[in-house]
């Protein structure tokens, strides 16, 4: 799980963070949901991505890692994690997306040399609805989208310091 450690200390090392973030997401889906994510051929429309989960990072790196998806995708994620029908997921879908975000954040920081012990994670927060704006103080943001069962899942890391 920690085979591809990258560097914390130099900004040059941060160039590797985006593929590390994608790998972290991929591993969480493979191990916990039993499926692979596909790369998005082009930037997906963010319309309909009405569930957002966020985990805060504090320490040597401060920022927010977020995972955004549609309600339908969230229900499908809960379905795969719990072995239930997607129609039965109900509020458990929010918990599922929150826990996925939490695991991606943890998996990501454990792959970055020096970040594992030097950075704390918050418990996840889940927002439903798409009519909101996030105003970040960060100036170094990573943003990628992968496809889960053909539907986009957008992962962002907004780095504040």
């Amino acid at each position, binding site marked *: 799980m920690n085979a591809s450690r990258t560097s914390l200390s130099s900004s040059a090392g941060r160039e590797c963070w985006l593929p590390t973030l994608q790998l972290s997401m991929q591993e969480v889906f493979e191990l916990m949901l039993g499926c692979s994510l596909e790369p998005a051929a082009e930037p997906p429309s963010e319309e309909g991505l009405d569930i957002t989960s966020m985990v805060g990072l504090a320490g040597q790196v401060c920022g927010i890692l977020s995972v955004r998806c549609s309600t339908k995708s969230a229900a499908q994620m809960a379905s795969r*994690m719990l072995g239930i029908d997607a129609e039965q997921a109900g509020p458990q879908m929010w*918990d599922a997306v929150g*826990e996925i975000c939490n695991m991606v954040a943890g998996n990501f*920081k454990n792959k970055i040399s020096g970040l594992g012990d030097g950075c704390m994670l918050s418990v996840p927060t889940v927002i439903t609805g798409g009519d909101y704006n996030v105003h970040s103080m960060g100036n170094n943001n990573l943003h990628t989208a992968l496809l889960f069962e053909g539907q986009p899942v957008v992962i962002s890391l907004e780095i504040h310091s």
Partner: protein
Amino acid sequence: MENIRALIVDDSSVMRKIVERSLRQAGLSIAQVLEAGNGAEALAAVENNKVDLILCDINMPVMDGLEFVRQLPGVANGKGVPVVMITTEGSEGHVVQALSAGARGYIRKPFTPDQVKEHVLPVLAENHQ
């Protein structure tokens, strides 16, 4: 060991269900599964129930998993109960911290049922001797 009474401590109900399923997939004979959403609830659960095994997250509101492990031997029924941490905090420092606090095993999220088996079975066997 048969008819294990397990306590699963995690603030995510989804994760508690996944951990329970992993225990059953590991082939353990589970008689009862208790759940708690944080360390304080888990201490109360241990005081009121005898359990053979505890699987515990670290990052939780109210009382985190490390504090729970430290306080566990001081509550009724808590002494000697093995605790295996299951957490996203997977750095060496966190592992050392958890083992120093009294945890007997450590599983990093994301995990497979095989990893649960690999970490839990030796702990149960050691405790049963």
